[in-house]
């Protein structure tokens, strides 16, 4: 029967493309893995002269002196971690309420749509523009604040950089948080409400704990973005190669130093040290991501 034969032929066609489709997927995954390893490998190879020269001392060295060939990454490591974590804390003040607002109170409708577009727009603004905005509008404001507080009124510094970074990373935590909060089963919420909980208690005791691992994943994504941000930070952080003494002091981050000094770096040791900085940043980001995933795993298996 011709109909049955064509059906068999159809199944056979799907069978073949099913296998080759899977092969393509495996290949794509493998290519990504190879790419990652290749990046790591090329960083290590290029940083070898500095690795051999400084060893572990690179991570605790406080001096970055291209003239004498002494390179130490501590000031930049501290600057990166300080500005990123501060930015995270500041951004969470905005992204968490925004997630609850858009996920729980106004999940659908015109207000929700508008707010979501605004938040996504924040993510789309190029970082150089954030840098300019920070330099010309935020710095004078911070300088006025510093004058009031009695701190040297320089305007630029780790605090300003954290503020700019915070605005940049709000969308990442907010959009993921919104989705996760919206996905909390209605049954769970209704059960709590039927037991007499107020809306606030439902959010605090049911919604947030349920969505906590997802919210944390969004926070992790935002942190990753903040750690690697270069252009916006380098314009407002003050570019001072000293260990920051307070949140208002100028500092520097690893990404900012690499971007600034790479083109003019003459000499193998200088170049290798800059690439070793890149390697350190790579490893720090990876470690934080792994830790974050472990925490998420723990949070979700606690249910």
């Amino acid at each position, binding site marked *: 029967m011709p109909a049955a034969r064509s059906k068999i032929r159809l199944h056979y066609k799907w069978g073949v493309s099913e296998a080759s489709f899977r092969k393509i997927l495996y290949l794509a995954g493998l290519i990504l893995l190879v790419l990652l390893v290749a990046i790591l490998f090329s960083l290590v190879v290029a940083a070898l002269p500095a690795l051999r020269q400084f060893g572990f001392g690179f991570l605790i060295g406080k001096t970055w002196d*291209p003239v004498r060939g002494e390179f130490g990454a501590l000031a930049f490591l501290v600057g990166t971690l300080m500005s990123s974590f501060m930015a995270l804390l500041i951004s969470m003040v905005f992204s968490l309420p925004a997630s609850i607002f858009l996920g729980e109170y106004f999940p659908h409708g015109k207000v929700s749509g508008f707010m979501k577009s605004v938040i996504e727009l924040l993510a789309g603004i190029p970082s150089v523009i954030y840098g300019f905005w920070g330099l010309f509008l935020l710095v004078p404001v911070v300088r006025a604040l510093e004058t009031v507080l009695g701190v040297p009124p*320089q305007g630029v510094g780790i605090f300003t950089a954290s503020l700019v970074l915070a605005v940049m990373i709000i969308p990442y935590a907010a959009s993921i948080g919104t989705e996760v909060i919206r996905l909390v089963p209605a049954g769970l919420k209704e059960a709590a409400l039927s037991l007499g909980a107020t809306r606030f208690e439902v959010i605090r005791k049911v919604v947030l704990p349920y969505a906590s691992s997802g919210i944390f994943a969004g926070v992790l994504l935002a942190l990753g973005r903040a750690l690697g941000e270069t252009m916006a930070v380098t314009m407002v952080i003050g*570019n001072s190669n000293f260990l920051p003494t307070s949140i208002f002091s100028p500092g520097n981050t690893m990404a900012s130093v690499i971007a600034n000094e790479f*083109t*003019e770096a003459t000499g193998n040791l*200088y170049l290798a040290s800059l690439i070793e900085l890149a390697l350190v940043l790579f490893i720090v980001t990876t470690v934080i991501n792994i830790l974050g995933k472990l925490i998420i795993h723990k949070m979700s298996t606690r249910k």
Partner: protein
Amino acid sequence: MKRSWMVFLLFFALLGFYGTGAAKEVELIGAGATFPYPLYSKMLDTYYQEHGIKINYQAIGSGGGIRQLTNKTVDFGGSDAIMSDKDLKEAGAPVLHIPTCAGAVVVTYNLGGDPQLKFTPDIIADIFLGKIKKWNDPRLTAINPEVKLAGTDITVVHRSDGSGTTAIFSSYLSKVSSEWKEKVGAGPSLNWPAGLGGKGNPGVAGLVKQTPGSFGYVELIYAFQNKMAYATIKNKKGNFIKPSIASTSLAADTALPEDMKVDLTDTDAAGGYPISGFTWILAYKEQDYAGRPEEKTKALVNLLWWMTHEGQKYAEPLHYAPLSKAAVGKAEKLIRSITYKGTSMMK
């Protein structure tokens, strides 16, 4: 399916032919210093209009220019700094430094009313070392008696990126302050003892303009164009010189070595501005390397001759100091010494 693949292949093949077919004329590539980029941009564009030879210059920084020339990926490099012995060893063959123009680094500040201030070399060094911290320091008020200086803090501003401007400035400071020479030294990137960093000349200018009481250094052009206040500095002969195109040219009015690898800072010239420097085009002396054809060498030699002669008229309108007659004479000798397979390209 098969037909669409063939169409794609044909399309790309045609693209390939088009690409190679158009590269019949000689084209030159250069890379290096950002300081002379506005001037080179104008010169190279004019040269293209007049002589039909396309030259592409990428302003990636003096360090980048030296590196690309060493890697033989460019025909010539641009640098505000003289190649060190280490750089020359890596290059492997003699590299000529042909000057194209001179520039000045000015110290600029942000004080109410934009007063015209005078500085001596040791004061500048001590401010950048972080030793003089307030504007009403007795050493400053002593040489500026007619200006009322308040007790505000001096916020030092320097470059956050590596640059030829920093190289010239730090070379000057190393000459006039032994403490600076010992503690910091000279070079395109430094371990600054104090202050904030701005990215590029525009970054420093921006920070100084915004921060009251700030004190930084920029190329003369930036101070002019941004209408910033800049200082008059005492030079080696004891005269207080205001930075300008004229005083920058005068700084080169000293004994010039044959290879033109001269640092013009702290110049002996009586009317010369003390923080001036040449910018050079770097090219290998013997041009027969990496399979270069003779036409490229001829084109390069003609370009260099034009840049040091007819091209000089574009310097002043763009606020660069043109080469003096003595400097042009030395440049001519250097250009004549460029050889291809041992024979000079220009008699």
